[in-house]
């Protein structure tokens, strides 16, 4: 299906309204505009390309079905991002139910080796140029657990407050604060190339 020139210049609000009336071309234009952002959010949480593609596809299908529930309280892109985040969290929860809890997972709440770690004084943004820093951050995110990565993504990239994160992750604000704190400390150690063995 090809969209016409008028749709590519229409605002998101106009396209949403047209899509609500059944205009698939308008919805396709919305998908084209926001697909990379939605995929990027799914990938940052799942760290797997195929899963991220599947979940972002599912998010678009759900957003079509729920268009009448979008009231403009946020931008359309943000609204679909919330849908894909919830889908990712559902998927992560399903995986967690299938695994037995490991020592590493218990450390997420209590901090593990980061509890004793002295403050990292190296500032990673000083040493690295932008492209290198992005790669390093991406590699560091890869090494975090799902819970640590999720809370960082929601707070640092989605700018959610503690209570919104708690609602999204279905946990208490205290758990959010604990996970966020230890996720940040772990990131600091990874960005400074500190091996955890050195901290014992």
């Amino acid at each position, binding site marked *: 299906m090809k969209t016409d020139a008028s749709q590519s210049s229409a605002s998101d609000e106009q396209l949403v309204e047209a899509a609500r009336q059944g205009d698939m071309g308008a919805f396709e234009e919305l998908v*084209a505009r926001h697909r*990379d952002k939605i995929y990027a959010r799914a990938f940052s949480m799942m760290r797997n390309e195929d899963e991220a*593609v599947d979940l972002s596809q599912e998010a678009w299908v759900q957003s079509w079905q729920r268009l009448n529930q979008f009231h403009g309280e946020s931008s359309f892109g943000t609204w679909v991002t919330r849908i894909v985040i919830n889908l990712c969290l559902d998927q992560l929860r399903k995986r967690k139910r299938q695994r037995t809890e490991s020592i590493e997972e218990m450390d997420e709440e209590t901090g593990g080796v980061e509890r004793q770690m002295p403050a990292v*004084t190296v500032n*990673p*943004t000083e040493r690295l140029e932008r492209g290198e820093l992005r790669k390093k*951050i991406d590699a560091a995110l890869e090494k975090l657990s799902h819970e640590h990565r999720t809370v960082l993504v929601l707070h640092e990239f989605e700018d959610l407050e*503690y209570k919104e994160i708690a609602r999204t992750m279905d946990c208490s604000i205290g758990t959010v604060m604990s996970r966020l704190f230890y996720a940040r400390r772990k990131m600091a150690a990874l960005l400074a190339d500190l091996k955890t063995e050195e901290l014992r």
Partner: protein
Amino acid sequence: MNEEAQFKLQAYLDGELPAGESAGVQEWLARDPEARALLAELQNTNAALAGHEAEVKLPETRDFFWSKIEREIGRQSVAATAPSRKSFWARWGWRGLVPAGGFAAVCLLALHLANPGAASAEFVPELELASDDMGAYTYRNQEDGLTMIWLYDRSSAAQSAQSSTPAILASK
């Protein structure tokens, strides 16, 4: 420094402290170098993350990705709009129960014997892959009714690179 203090420092950084507590944290920072060092670390990590998320793009063409979404929307809307049936009671009432029930049972048996594979009125495409290492993308072109299924090796780093799926080509 205990956990409660560390979390308070974090909340101060994130602007999540309850009203009136910021002044107390500022006084604490002025006299405690360990607290200042920890705050600096949290600030550095924040600054590193802010605006440095890796830019990733969806690894599928616009048309291909859209075709899968469109197909799934179509499939789900067909499943949702099954025709409604008139109330049996409105038509027949209690007196029609025996012949109508017998008629229905015979029809069901006949349908099963005539078409054992057709459990539902709507055809639902199926796909099964023999290995967890394989994946598939489905694309449907509405104009000519063509369904394309692209099979790929999940373990390959790039899907356009050389594939380790079983060889299909080579002449007889």
